[in-house]
C-alpha cells in the first residue's frame, strides 16, 4: 500500500509532504478558476506561517480548529471564556464526559494538537474584550464561531477601528459563522472595504420582547408565565439571590412559579424544558449544521490565504452564504451591500434619521432601542448636542439623569436635533437625527 511518490519519513517531518499529498494537488496546480496573478503554485509557506485566530471553542469552534489543522494551518490561537457543560457533548466532539467543567479553549487546543501532529494551538481562556489592538494585530485572519451577537459586534468594531489606510497589514479579514437548528450562515468581511457585521445587523433581528404589562396582567402563552417568573417573581421574592440559569434549583423554582401562574390563568404548556429554553434563550444546535458552517468558513479562509480558488468577500463579489436544510438543501450566496450610514464602518459625518414618538417617555425610547433591528442596544447612554439625557455610568451621573427617564421625548429634544447613543458593550457611537413619528 505504501507505493507513494516519495518515501515516507516518520512523523510527517519537515520537508516531507507525503502526508499533505491531497492538499498539495490544489496548492501546486492552478485550476480553471484560479487567478493567475495571485496564485503561486507550490506555496505552502503562506499557510504554515499564517497566524489564525479562532474566536469560540464551542460547536463551531471545535469544527473550525479541526478543519484549519487539516487544511495546512500550523499556528492557530483560540479564545473562549466558557467551561464545558454536559449539553455540549451532543455536538462539541473534542470534549468527553470527563471534561465537563474544564475550559473549552484548553481542552479543544490540546485535543487537536495531539491528533494532528505539527500544529500549534494556543488557547486563551477569557473574554475577547480582555485583549487589545496589539493582540489582534498579530493575526492574518480571524475566524469567528460565536453564539453571541454582542461578542460579534465587539470584534467587528475592533477590527474596523484598527484599519489604518497607510498600513495594509492593519486590515484583518473576518470570517464569521452562525447556526440555528438546520440553518446557518457563513460570511467574509474585509473591515471598512465590505459590508460589516453592523451593516448586516438587520439580518438577525431580535425576537420582539413581550411588553411588561402583558407579563404582569394579561399572560396568554406559557412563555409569558415563564418570563413573569423570570423577570418579576424572582425580583420580588428572591432579590438577594443572583439568578444562575445553570443552577437546576433556580430553574426548578422558576418552572414551579410559572406553572402555578399558568394554572391561575388556565394556560397549558409550561414545561421544565421550555422554562430552561426561555430563561437561557436556548437556540437548538446540532453537529451537522455546525459542520457545514464551520467548514464553509475554513474553506473560505483557505482560499483567501492561498488563492487556490476565488473566495467570498472580495470587494464587489458575493460575501454571504445562507444555508437552509429544513426543506431539501438550499443555499443563497450573495453580496451584502455595505451601508453608507453604518454606525461602525460608514462615513463618520453621517447621522441616520431616527423616527421617535414625541409622546413616548425616554424610558420607552430606551426600551425600543433594544428591539430596533439596526441598533439592538441594551444599555444605551444618550446625549444630544448640548445635554446628557441619560447616562448609564458613572453612578453619580446616572442618578442625576435618571429623572429624565419619566419625561416625554418632545420635552427633551427637538426635531432635527442630533442624538448620540453609546453603549458600553461596543466601542462605537451611534449618531441619529431626530424625526418625529406622525
Amino acid at each position, binding site marked *: 500500500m505504501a507505493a507513494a511518490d516519495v518515501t515516507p519519513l516518520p512523523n510527517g517531518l519537515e520537508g516531507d509532504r507525503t502526508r499533505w499529498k491531497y492538499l498539495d494537488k490544489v496548492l501546486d496546480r492552478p485550476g480553471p478558476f484560479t487567478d493567475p496573478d495571485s496564485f503561486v503554485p507550490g506555496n505552502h509557506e503562506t499557510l504554515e506561517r499564517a497566524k489564525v485566530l479562532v474566536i469560540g471553542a464551542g460547536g463551531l469552534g471545535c469544527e473550525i480548529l479541526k478543519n484549519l489543522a487539516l487544511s495546512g494551518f500550523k499556528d492557530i490561537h483560540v479564545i473562549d471564556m466558557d467551561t464545558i457543560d454536559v449539553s455540549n457533548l451532543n455536538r462539541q466532539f473534542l470534549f468527553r464526559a470527563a471534561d465537563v467543567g474544564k475550559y473549552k479553549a484548553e481542552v479543544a487546543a490540546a485535543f487537536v494538537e495531539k491528533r494532528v501532529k505539527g500544529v500549534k494551538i494556543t488557547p486563551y481562556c477569557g473574554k475577547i474584550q480582555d485583549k487589545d489592538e496589539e493582540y489582534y494585530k498579530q493575526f492574518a485572519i480571524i475566524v469567528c464561531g460565536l453564539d453571541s451577537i454582542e461578542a460579534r459586534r465587539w470584534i467587528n468594531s475592533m477590527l474596523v477601528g484598527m484599519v489604518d489606510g497607510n498600513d495594509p497589514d492593519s486590515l484583518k479579514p473576518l470570517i464569521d459563522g452562525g447556526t440555528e437548528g438546520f440553518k446557518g450562515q457563513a460570511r467574509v468581511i474585509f473591515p471598512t472595504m465590505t459590508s460589516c457585521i453592523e451593516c448586516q445587523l438587520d439580518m438577525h433581528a431580535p425576537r420582539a420582547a413581550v411588553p411588561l404589562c402583558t407579563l404582569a396582567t394579561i399572560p396568554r402563552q406559557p412563555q409569558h408565565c415563564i418570563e413573569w417568573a423570570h423577570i418579576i417573581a424572582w425580583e420580588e421574592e428572591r432579590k438577594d439571590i443572583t439568578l444562575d440559569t445553570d443552577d437546576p434549583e433556580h430553574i426548578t423554582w422558576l418552572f414551579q412559579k410559572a406553572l402555578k401562574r399558568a394554572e391561575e390563568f388556565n394556560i397549558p404548556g409550561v414545561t421544565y424544558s421550555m422554562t430552561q429554553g426561555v430563561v437561557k434563550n436556548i437556540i437548538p444546535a446540532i*453537529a451537522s449544521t455546525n459542520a457545514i458552517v464551520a467548514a464553509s468558513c475554513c474553506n473560505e479562509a483557505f482560499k483567501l490565504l492561498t488563492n487556490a480558488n476565488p473566495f467570498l468577500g472580495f470587494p464587489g463579489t458575493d460575501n454571504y452564504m445562507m444555508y437552509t436544510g429544513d426543506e431539501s438543501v438550499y443555499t443563497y450566496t450573495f453580496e451584502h451591500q455595505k451601508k453608507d450610514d453604518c454606525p461602525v464602518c460608514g462615513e463618520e459625518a453621517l447621522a441616520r434619521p431616527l423616527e421617535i414618538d414625541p409622546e413616548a417617555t425616554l424610558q420607552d425610547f430606551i426600551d425600543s432601542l433594544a428591539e430596533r433591528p439596526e441598533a439592538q442596544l441594551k444599555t444605551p447612554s444618550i446625549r444630544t448636542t448640548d445635554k446628557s439625557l441619560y447616562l448609564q455610568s458613572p453612578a453619580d451621573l446616572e442618578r442625576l439623569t435618571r429623572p429624565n427617564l419619566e419625561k416625554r421625548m418632545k420635552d427633551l429634544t427637538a426635531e432635527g436635533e442630533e442624538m448620540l447613543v453609546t453603549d458600553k458593550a461596543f466601542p462605537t457611537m451611534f449618531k441619529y437625527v431626530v424625526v418625529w413619528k406622525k
Partner: protein
Amino acid sequence: MADLPPPVQGPTAKEKKYDRQLRLWGATGQMALENSHILLINSGPGVVGLETLKNLVLPGIGHFTIQDSQVVDETDLGVNFFLEEQHLGGFRAEHACNLLKELNPDVQGSFITEPLESWLTQPDSLKPYTLILAIAPVRPELLTQLQAHADQALAPLFYVHSVGFYSHFSVYLPPAFPIVDTHPSPETTTDLRLLKPWPELLEYAQQKTKNHENMAADDHGHIPYIAVLLHYLEEWKKEHNGEAPQNYKDKTAFRDLVKQATRTDNPEGGEENFEEAVSAVLRSLNPPEPSSTVKEIFKAPECVLIRENSAPFWVIAHAIGLFYTKYGVLPVPGAVPDMKARSADYIQLQNVYKSKARKDFAEVLESVRFLERNANRSTQIEDKDVEAFCKNAAHIKLVRGRPFHVVPAEGDLKWGSNAKSLVFLAWDKFTATHSLDGLAGAPRPPGSSEAELEADTEKVTGIALKLASDLTKQASYPVDQDDLDTVNSQIMELAQEIVRAGGGELHSIGALTGGIVSQEVIKVITEQYVPVDNTCVFDGVRSKSSVFRV
C-alpha cells in the same frame, strides 16, 4: 415554597445531553435515530464518510458499521481526523471505528475489513442496515448491487463524492417516502379559517365585539384581532351581496375599513389589536384550500386503495381525503397565534379552535377505524398519530424515491439535469476504467499523477461532453445551440477543476459535505423535515449548492 406545586423531576441525563437536538426532532425522532443501524461503505481518501458518521454518532444513532478494506497510510493522516500515527499500517475501518465510538458511549460501532466485492457475495450481508452510505469510487457493478438491495429492502441508499472543491451526492429513497412532520416555517402554518368560520367561532366574534362602539378604551383595545376581523367581514358581506373580499383590490379596501375603525383618541394614539388586524388582512383572508401537493397525495394509488398492509400514512391520508371531499377543507389544525388580548378572552378563543380541531380529528379517527376494519388490518393506528397528521395535514409531503444513474450512463437523463452531475458521472466512468497498477488494481481517479494530468483532463472532459451530446440527441425537444455551448464550456471548466484534485479530498469540503449528508440522513431516519430529492452538488469554489432530480 408552601404554595408551590410539589417538586418535579428535572430532566434525565439523556435529556440533558441531547437537549439542543430534542428541541428540533423531539423524543420520537430521537427514538428513530437510536433504533437505526447505519452502514458506511468507505473508499477514496475516506474523509466525507467518516465526517458524516461523526455527525450521526454525536446525536446518538443506535449502531454504525464501517466497511473499508484500505490500510492507513501517511496521506490519511493529513486529511482524516479519525486516524492517528500509531494506526499506520492498520485497517482504516477498525481504527476510525474506535475513535468514532469515543464520541458517544451510547453508540455501538462495528467494522468490516473484507473487500466489498467478496463481502457483498455473502447472503444477507446488507440485511442488518437501516440505511447505507456508499462513498465514491464504488465499482459500477457493485453500486448496481447496492441499488438492487435498496430497491428490494426499501433501505435508503446514499452515494457520495467529495473531490477537491466539489462534492456531490444522490439518494435513493423508497418509491413512496411520505412525511407528516415536515416542520413548516411558522409563518406558513397559521390557518384561521376566517373565510370559513364555524358557528362557535362566529358566536365568539359576536360576543367579543358586541356594542363595541360604546366600549371603554381599554376594553376596545383588547378585543382579539380575530374577533375584529370576523366582525368587519360580516359588515363587509352586508354591503357586498354576502361575499367576502375576493381579490387584492377588495382586500385592500377591506383593510382600509378596519384601519378606519381604529380608535386614535386614546393616550397611545392607536390600538395594537387593530394594528394586528390590519396587518393580518392580506395574509389571512385566503380560502383555506389545500396545496396541489396535498391534493396529489389524495390521488396517489396507495391512497386510493387501502389494503391490509398499507402504511399508516396512507390510511390516515385516505381518511383526511374523505374529510376534504365532504367539507372542501382540511381538518382545523387548532393553533392560534399570540395576539393582544386579555388572558381569559384569549384562552376562550384558543378553546374555540381546539374544540373544533378535536371534533375534526374525531371524525377523521372514525374514518380511520372504519378503513382499518374494512381492510382487515390487525393493528390499530395510534390516536396520537392521527392527531398529529390532522394538525399538519396542510403541510404533508410525499417524496417519490428513484434510483440514480450509475455509469455507464444510459437511458433518459433529463436534459439540463446539470452539467455538474455529468462531470461526476464522467469521473466515475474514468475511475472505473483506470487502475493504479494495471489489471484489477485499486481504481485510479483522474489527475492522480503529474505525468497524466493533461491527458486525464482531456479524457474526463471527453466523457462528460459525450454524455451531454447523447442526452441532447435523446431530448424530446430541440436544444438551443447557445444553451449547449454554455453547458459545454461549463463542463470543460468543471472537468478541469475536478481532475486538478487528483481524486484527493480537501478536509473542509469533506467536512462540509459530511454535514449536509448527515442532515439528510437524520431527516430520512426521523421522517421529519423534507429530504433532498434526489441529487445535490456543492460547489466550494463559489460556495453554492444546487439540487436536482436525476
